[in-house]
């Protein structure tokens, strides 16, 4: 079989060679060791000796051609054999594990912005100097490293600085960083007072007595639901705009709480078991829904009652609430307006409280506790993460009257109404 002779590798650094001169002709018979040609390499001009005895069938590379090592230059075989096609070369042997061009590691992703640790503050335009160990400690303790001052060499923050920061409840006194994080004053805005005994008012005493009685005698259980508040907020905006166009300055403004009151009434109509009271040997089912709602006053909480909420429209409920609130603030609520509720709604959302569970306003069977509407990432129907507005609503139930299923159904109904508020208008 014919053999193709390639431009030989004549030195370990050779990559191309020039075929200076052929010593043989096509058709000539050659023996092992005969000099076939002279080849110029990077180092010297060498002789190519024959390693395949036979007949020169074909010369592929004319004298003077410069070729890379491995390109065919001639073919040797048996006399009268057909010269092979120089392009049809045998596939090279299995290659070695190739040096990988890349390591297969994707480009270094942008450093994920950690939601916990703040970026080091730029103090004097330079980076925060902190030892790796101290940095880790600070992250774990949720301490802002940039707020620390370092006692290590060159001002480096080291472990003992983080330890010192963690043991003081407020940020340490240091040249950098806030000196004193003010303690949130109580709602009266007066700041911390000196030691003193304040005599309890009648109202406070009453509230206290009733709360103790409720907590001690009523077996409370707690349920919670998260409501998509976006539809509700949208509707409120629309309705308020309508009201403003119609009524001008003094127009009624619907609050979120108004909607919740209305929705609660609707939900109670659907799940009447929650609109009941424990009567010792019986459970009294109430026919009407009388909604109590919390109003915070200077020295306590009052719960005025909207009577027959089940038959009132949203607007009527809102107007009632508005009126009752101003009476409550003026301390002009009558006893009738403060009692007889069948269900209570309290709302701490305006303070940013995200969720809570109130103490049942006996003889109600349950109390609804409404939290703030929070913007957060949520999963939508197509399993995508989108921005959502969510409100957490808690229900404390009297387990003698309401069981888990009823309570859950009530919350479910409430949620349905709140998330599709147009139903309120029916």
């Amino acid at each position, binding site marked *: 079989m014919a053999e193709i002779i390639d431009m030989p*590798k*004549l*030195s370990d650094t050779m990559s191309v060679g020039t075929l200076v001169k052929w010593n043989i002709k096509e058709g000539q018979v050659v023996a092992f060791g005969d000099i076939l040609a002279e080849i110029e390499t990077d*180092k010297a001009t060498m002789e190519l000796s024959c*390693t395949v005895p036979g007949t020169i069938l074909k010369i592929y590379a004319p004298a003077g051609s410069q070729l890379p090592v491995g390109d065919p230059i001639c073919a040797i075989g048996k006399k009268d054999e057909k010269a092979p096609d120089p392009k049809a070369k045998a596939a090279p042997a*299995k290659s070695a594990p190739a040096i990988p061009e890349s390591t297969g590691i994707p480009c270094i992703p942008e450093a994920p912005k950690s939601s916990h640790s703040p970026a080091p503050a730029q103090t004097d335009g330079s980076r925060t100097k902190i030892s790796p160990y101290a940095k880790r400690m600070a992250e774990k303790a949720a301490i802002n490293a940039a707020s620390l001052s370092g006692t290590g060499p060159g001002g480096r923050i080291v472990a003992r600085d983080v330890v010192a920061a963690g043991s003081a409840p407020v940020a340490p006194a240091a040249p950098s960083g806030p000196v004193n994080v003010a303690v949130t004053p109580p709602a009266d805005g007066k700041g911390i007072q000196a030691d003193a005994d304040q005599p309890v008012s009648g109202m406070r005493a009453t509230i206290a007595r009733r709360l103790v009685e409720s907590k001690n005698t009523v077996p409370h259980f707690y349920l919670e639901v998260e409501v998509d508040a976006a539809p509700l907020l949208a509707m409120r905006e629309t309705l308020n705009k309508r009201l403003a166009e119609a009524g001008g300055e003094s127009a009624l403004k619907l609050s979120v709480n108004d909607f919740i009151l209305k929705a609660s009434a609707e939900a109670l109509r659907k799940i009447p078991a929650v609109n009941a009271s424990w009567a010792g040997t019986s459970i009294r089912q109430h026919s009407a829904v009388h909604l109590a709602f919390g109003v915070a006053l200077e020295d306590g909480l009052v719960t005025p009652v909207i009577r027959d909420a089940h038959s009132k429209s949203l607007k009527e409920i809102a107007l009632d609430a508005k009126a009752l609130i101003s009476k409550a603030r003026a301390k002009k609520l009558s006893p009738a307006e403060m009692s007889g509720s069948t269900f209570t709604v309290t709302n701490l959302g305006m303070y940013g409280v995200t969720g809570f569970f109130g103490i049942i306003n006996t003889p109600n069977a349950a109390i609804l506790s409404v939290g703030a509407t929070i913007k957060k990432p949520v999963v939508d129907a197509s399993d995508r993460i989108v921005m959502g507005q969510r409100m957490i609503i808690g229900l404390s139930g009297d387990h003698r009257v309401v069981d888990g299923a009823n309570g859950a159904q009530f919350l479910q109904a409430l949620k349905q109404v709140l998330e599709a508020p147009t139903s309120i208008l029916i």
Partner: protein
Amino acid sequence: MAKPAVITHPESLKNPAGPSEYSKHPVNSSLTKEAKIALYTKMARIRHFEQRCIRVYQQGKIGGFLHLYVGQEAVAAGTISLLGKHDHIITGYRDHGHGLMVGMGMKECMAELTGKVTGCSKGKGGSMHYFAPDKNYWGGHGIVGGQAPLGTGLAYAVKYRGEKGSCFTYMGDGAVNQGAVHEAYNLAALWDLPVVFVVENNGYSMGTSQERSTAHPGCLAKRAEGYNMAWDVINGHDVYEVRAKTAAALKRAHEESKPTVLEIFTYRYFGHSMADPDKTYRDKEEIKEYRDKKDPVFLFEKELLAEKVLTPELVESINAAAMEEADAAAAFADESPEPTQADITKHIYWEEDNRSKNSTSSGTIIFE
């Protein structure tokens, strides 16, 4: 260009090609017909293997160095054919001939040249590092003269164990000026070790003739007298002479546990290595002279034809078979797989390759 120095081997060029003076020597006359044919076959196999390597090298499949033994076959063949169970061999980097003589296979040898995992050193040694400890062959070494103390040590172990054996420590004419070789000579003579130092004098240390490298040229073995050692010179183109004179050194090693330095005149037709364009230090005429008149394979062939041990047909078939075997080895090397990346860090430590629950070596020994 100045005329390159022509080496003078007064002994080697003296006798024209004729019947060997040593064919009647008992060590040769006692050989059976089959043994003689086998010896010739082995020489032919070395030649064809080496020649096939040229092609593989030119195809770019052999990296690094390739030092060919073509022309020196009788040295390895003559000496190694005498050796027995407790005789060991170590040599420098022109080691293919010795490897094939002790019985290594052409396939594993060729695969080693191309760096394949099926090579005799699993692709980790290359041309200069053939090893076959099970055949008493201890390599294949790259540093000139570095193997001399090793060979002396192998002889030391043979003596220590009370075995009647030897270590044939081969080196080139360029190695005799290395310090390690002198230290080995001294230790071998001082402690009476059964070493046979075989200086394969092919006239050139790479491109430097003896006159230009050795302060006492003309006879490299004679310096053995400085170490109180026996020495001899041998015509390395005549395999019968190689056997006859080496037998004496072997006997001295076995029976007296004393070392010998043998200088064997021989010749290589190709450059020091494949990368050596040997035109700068010798004439083409010189090479042709040796090929025509002193080729050891051809001379032995003639000898055996005259003895009627070989026939022309047999000669033809032996050579054809050797060529075929070499071709098959090249194909085997081509088709063999490479080592994997994981192989790089294997076979470094015996304790790591043979971990057991009794291992007393732990910790990190390969680093990243």
